[in-house]
């Protein structure tokens, strides 16, 4: 189980590849990998966003992320999980969050991956401040994630 905060840009597909390779022999029993990658959009609530600052609570953020992964591990059978989250200054198109769950079964991989994302968004101490053309604003809340537009 790996949880990382990154102060600089990261390349999510290279991270996934590296982590996948590092699992060595375990990979052969991990037939299912579900991932989620969140990147910065250049708009929010109808406004153009040119930059974003991600604040966090050093110590508590890592602790909460680890707790979320442990809770998922108690609930679903998976072999390994990777969580990477940006902190600091982020530009449109930059990856913000990466979650990957390796399991022998796709249902567990999908469910645990989604759970990690929903818990991360509702419990991990991160705060986004957007830079607009006309100043800055704090993002006030995250949208609930289990109901989709479908």
């Amino acid at each position, binding site marked *: 189980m790996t949880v990382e905060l990154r102060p600089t840009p990261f390349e999510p597909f290279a991270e996934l590849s590296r982590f996948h390779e590092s699992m060595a022999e375990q990979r052969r029993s991990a037939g299912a990998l579900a991932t989620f990658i*969140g990147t910065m959009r250049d708009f929010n609530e109808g406004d153009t966003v040119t930059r974003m600052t*991600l*604040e*966090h*609570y050093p*110590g*508590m953020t890592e*602790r*909460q992320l680890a707790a979320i992964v442990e809770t998922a591990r108690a609930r679903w059978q998976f072999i390994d999980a990777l969580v990477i*989250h940006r902190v600091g200054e982020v530009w449109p198109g930059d990856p*913000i*969050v990466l979650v990957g769950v390796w399991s022998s079964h796709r249902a567990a991989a999908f469910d645990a991956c989604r759970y990690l*994302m929903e818990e*991360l*968004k*509702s*419990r*991990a*101490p*991160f*705060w*986004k*401040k957007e830079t607009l053309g006309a100043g800055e604003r*704090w*993002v*006030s*809340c*995250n949208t609930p994630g289990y109901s989709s537009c479908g």
Partner: protein
Amino acid sequence: MSIRVRYFASLREKMGRVEETLAAEGLETVSDVWKAVSEGRPLPEQILCAVNMDYATPESLVADGDEVAFFPPVTGG
């Protein structure tokens, strides 16, 4: 007793400070800590709190040496 109090994001800006250390006596709960740093005002409903980096409630007890944090709803991911 000594309590380290920390603020984050929009609340940090509103408070005009990143952190402070309370040396007052008689602080029993998170709610007491908030009152001590905000001239007796009640804790705003949407503000979250943590004691020693675990989520807490206004009724959670605090002890000497604790770190108490206040912050707005989280918006990561």
